């Protein structure tokens, strides 16, 4: 298999841009921050990052921003990720593995329902009581 050149990468990007017809513009405001400090790396945050990328693409959410940060201070529950989605409070999830990442994409990002059992930094209690709605 020949190595892709930067030119080919550019062509691929342009072709993917035209493929996206109907796009939910609100997905641009959604941001996922993956903790990638020593603790995160050791706990498998890389696989979690990979899962978010593939799952978000499966659901056609290609404009979601996915960035990384160093340790968020929650080393004991790594991997941790923060989700900032419109209409939802900002949440930090802990003990995230590929299964949980998949759940977060389906429940939190798409259905606007928090995955309560993995919330580690929570917004105020009354929001949790309402099921995140």
């Amino acid at each position: 298999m020949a190595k892709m050149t930067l030119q080919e990468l550019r062509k691929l990007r342009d072709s993917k841009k035209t493929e996206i017809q109907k796009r939910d513009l609100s997905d641009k405001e959604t941001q996922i921050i993956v903790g990638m400090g020593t603790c995160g790396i050791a706990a498998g945050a890389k696989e979690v990052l990979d899962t978010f990328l593939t799952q978000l693409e499966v659901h056609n959410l290609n404009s979601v921003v996915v960035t990384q940060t160093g340790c968020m201070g929650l080393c004991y529950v790594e991997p941790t990720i923060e989700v900032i989605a419109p209409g939802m409070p900002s949440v930090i999830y802990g003990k995230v593995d590929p299964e949980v990442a998949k759940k977060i994409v389906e429940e939190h990002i798409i259905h606007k329902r928090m995955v309560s059992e993995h919330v580690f930094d929570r917004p105020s209690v009354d929001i949790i009581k309402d099921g995140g709605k």
Partner: protein
Amino acid sequence: MHASICDLLADIVQNSIEADASLIRISFIQTDDMLSVEVLDNGRGMDEKQQIKALDPFYTDGHKHAARKVGLGLPFLKQMVDLTEGIFSLRSEKGKGTDVSFTIDLSHIDAPPVGDIVMTLTGLFSYPSESEIIFRRVFARGGEHDEYEVEKSGLLEVLGDLNTVGNLLLVKEYMQSQEAAVEDVHHRVR
């Protein structure tokens, strides 16, 4: 503990980013069973005292985390190299930069797996920082040889940003095609 060489590498490159390096050169040279890795940066560097402290797991320079009591990246790496009877070197000059290098025998019974180069580099290229990162990968086995080089600035120029899902998947695909060519050499020579 870091499960793979790539995990250890990610930690070291992050150190370079946090040292405010504007240029980080990573070379990953695999010849038969030997692996030589070098991370060279032009960040703030360390004087001799700091270099000794950097290898102490209970030392961190306080930049990353004011309350942190451990700094494990370099100690983990040195431990792995010692366990596999490899060669480790840390050279640094305050105000100029740092060079972390190691060479190990991948066939050593205690050598960790190389790990996921594609995902690790995708993560490093997209880690928030102004640093340019140049990754050079060389693979040689039984007389056959292949190599590639990827620059973060090149990817950024083509894609515009490195933090949307669409673009990150393109980086991953690009890296996969570079690695696949290297894997071809590996299989051809088996």
